[in-house]
Structures are given as C-alpha cells and as structure tokens.
C-alpha cells in the first residue's frame, strides 16, 4: 500500500529558510562550544589516555602461559590447545623432563611454545580446553611489532606476560 507522505505546510517565515539556518547553527555551535570549552568529553586520546583499568574481567587479550606458586611451568605439552586453535596460531615442541628434575613425575613439558600473534583471533578456546589451566588470555591488547618474526610470542615472552597464577590445579603438588 502506498503511503502518502503529508508535507508540512510551512509558514512564510519558515519558507525564508533563514530561521532554520539560525536554529541549526544553534545546535552545531552548542556542540562546538561544549567540546571546545571542555565541558563535554567524548573521545579518549588513545596512547596517552588508556581504558585499561576499566577493562572487564572477562576481557580476552593476548594468550599467555603461567607458572604456579612453586615456580613450575603448568603446561605439560599435551598439545590440546595446538589442536583446537582455529587459526592454528600455536606451535608446541614437547620434550621429556629429565628424571633428575624436581618435577620428573610430570614427565612432559614444552621445549618450545610459539603463538603467532598475527594469526591469533583471541577466541579463548586454548584457555577453555587446557586441562592444566596453564594458558590464560590476559588483558594485553596492544600487540605490535615491525616484522613477522617479532609478532611470534615464544615461550619466554609468554611466561613474561603470564607470570604466576595460584590455585586450582594441585595434582602435581608434593603432598599428593
């Protein structure tokens, strides 16, 4: 059904267009002076001002490996994250833990653990699938580099971002 749009009948001074310009300029200049005088602030000046403290708890930033309270690397190189990673950003080279090591009973640890941050889509599936709670998505979001090689996070870098995480997984403790 066709709808007939009723056009408003304008008064003669409205047809002059000039009152319309003035009321329009009142709106735009209102915005202009509010912004210029600093009474209203909308934009954040990014590199100087950051939003980091108000990032939500569930924020999914760069994935990182964590150590537990006894300085043991939690990752046991099961490679589940490598298999589930949708863009195949994770590459793990496992190695056996030598028998004279304190944590010999864990048996396996990653020799190399690389995450290609150009590929990573921050989906969080690695965190979800990890049986040892060894990989977490942290709040780092400004991952930059000037070359492809720089964008690959190796094991050292991943532990640097991840740090220490306490709790939950206790099965490798001495007592058990």
């Amino acid at each position, binding site marked *: 059904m066709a709808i007939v749009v009723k056009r408003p009948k304008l008064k003669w001074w409205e047809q002059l267009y000039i009152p319309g310009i003035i009321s329009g300029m009142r709106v*735009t200049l209102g915005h202009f002076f509010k*912004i210029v005088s600093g009474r209203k602030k909308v*934009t954040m000046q990014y590199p100087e001002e950051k939003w980091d403290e108000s990032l939500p708890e569930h924020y999914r930033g760069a994935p990182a490996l964590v150590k537990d309270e006894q300085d043991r690397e939690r990752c046991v190189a099961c490679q589940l994250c490598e298999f589930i990673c949708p863009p195949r950003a994770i590459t793990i080279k496992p190695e056996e833990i030598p028998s004279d090591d304190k944590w010999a009973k864990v048996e396996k640890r990653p020799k190399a653990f690389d995450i290609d941050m150009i590929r990573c889509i921050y989906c969080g599936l690695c965190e979800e699938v990890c049986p040892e709670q060894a990989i977490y998505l942290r709040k780092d979001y400004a991952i930059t580099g000037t070359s492809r090689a720089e964008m690959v996070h190796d094991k050292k870098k991943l532990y640097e971002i991840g740090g220490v995480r306490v709790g939950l997984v206790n099965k490798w403790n001495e007592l058990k």
Partner: protein
Amino acid sequence: MDWHIIIAASVKIVVFVFLVTLPLVAMSVWAERRVSAAIQDRVGPNRVGPAGLLQAVADGIKFLLKEDFTPDHVRKGYFWLAPALVMVPALMTSAVLPFGSSLFGEKMVIADLDVGPLFVFAVASLSVYGIVLAGWASNSKYPFLGGVRSTSQMISYEISLGLSVVPLIMIYGELNLSSIVQYQAENGWALLPLWGEGLSVKGFLLTIPVLISFIVFMTSMFAETNRLPFDLPECETELVAGYHTEYSSMKFALFFLGEYAAMIIGSGLAVTLFLGGWSLPFGWLTPESADAAVPWWHGLIHIGTFFAKVIALILFFIVIRWTLPRFRYDQLMRLGWVFFFEIALFNVVLTALLMWWLA
C-alpha cells in the same frame, strides 16, 4: 618605469599572496577539520605540532610525495592545465582587495584598480574553465557529469552574485575598493551604519537592501565556491568525486586548495563590500582620506582588522557547512534562477527607489 613601484608591488604580492593567503588556505583546511570535529563531538587532527597546527604542512608533504598519476585515456594538455586554472584565478582576484589602509606611505593593495568588483568577477569566473576542462579532459563519465553540474551551478549563481553587488555600488557611487572601504570607515559599514553620515534615516533605510544583498551575495558565494549546502559537483553516490575523480597528488591538491582560496577571497570581498574592510567600527583610527598617510601602527592595526574579519567569515563558512544538509540539484537551480535572480533584480530597483526618495 619607476623601480619603486615595481619593488613595492612585488613585495606586496609575495607577502600578501604567498606568505599570507596561501598559509591561510592551509590553515583554513586545518580549521575546517578541527571545527567540524568539535561540532560532531570529536577531536580532529591534534598530533602534528601544537594543537595540530602543523597538520597542513604534513598534508602538503603527503600531497607532494604521492604518485602524480595521469591516466592513459585523458587529454593530457587540458588535464594538466585544469588544476592551475582553478587555483590561479582565485589567487589573482586577491590583487584588488585592500587588506589594509597604508603602511610606510604605501597603499596596502596590490593593484589599486578603479574597477575592483568588476575585475574580481571577471577573473573569478575564469575558474569555471578549470572545472569544465577537468571534467571534459578526464574523458570518463563521472568527471564529465560532475563538471557539467558544477559549471551550470557556477554560471547560474554568478548572475545573482553580480547583481547583488549592484545596489552597493549604487550606494557608494564608486568602483574602487579602497575608496569603498574609506567611505565605510568614515560613514559606517554597509551593514552597520552607526556613525558618520550613516547615522541617519537614509543610512538605516538603506541597510534593508544591503541586508538582502548580503544574504544573496553570501549564498551565491557558497554556490560559487562549491561549498556544502551546494556541493553538488562532488557526490559520492552519484558522481564519485565529481570533476576531480581522475586527479591525484598535487593536481588534486590544487583543486582542493583552489576551492579554499576562492572561499578566502570571497570572504575578503564580502568583508570589503559589506563589513567595512580594514576599518575599525565607529570610525576609530580612520585616516583623513584614502591617500592620507597613517602612522605605521595604525596601518598594522588595519591589516589585523581585515584578517580578523576574514577569518571570522571563514569560520562562518565552515560552521554553515557542517550545519546544513545539501540541496537537491533541481532545488539548487530553482533557488538560483527563480528566487535569487529575481530578488537581486528587485533589490536593485528597491535601492534606486530608496535613493531617489531620500536624495
């Protein structure tokens, strides 16, 4: 030939055109971006230099370093000529604008012509050729259609632009822009006749046609410079970028800057004709006559006043651009031919009647 005149004229050309107007063009681009940002609750370019003031320099470097690409299918000679034909007339019109009273006994106008407004209209309308050539030489459909649109728009509004100035010329009885400003300095600005001879019934009644003229003049100026309520030549959805679709690098920049230069010169002309040019309100620091010597600091104040007025008018142009939606093309033509042409004609008659009645 008198060397003194040549040297003084060259100094004035270099200083006024290349050291003041061109930087003013660059700065008005910066102002456009900052003001539009503030109107839209954004920040705008604020990184290069203090408050982003050097953004214009960065833009200039970018334009110079970009590849200057000439497509194969264009008519090269005309294609290269067109951008210059837009920029040069805009700058040439600045020759007759009096941008100050006088400094060290030298009149602050490059060419003190006795046909000021006529010269401005004659030269400014040359920039239509730049757009025609750009549209035609590009040899592709969008620039062609954009060029046709722009040309018809500029030609239509030139008529009301010219006619809107006639009442003022009738009131001043003078075509020399310096004398027009001197008259306004002594007898009140055309739009603000509050001192001298302007402070009379005649002065007040004559502001009615002057105000009508001002509105017609300003609106036609918007159309002439292809600025927003009338920026029909550029139209993303229909015409891509209009007549400069095929241009890149510095050639595009010349179109872009030519538009702003035309806006600045248009503001200068509006200031000179309607708002008293370099003169201060209420006849303060007014020189005895157009040729009288003034102290150097008066001269500097007059130059400052002129540019303050021009900058205020440029800001007005910018705010209007970000306030009003654009016209449809038939509305634009209707406004130009059916309303402004008649209003301007009627205004000439009204001024004549008023002057005859009040004489």
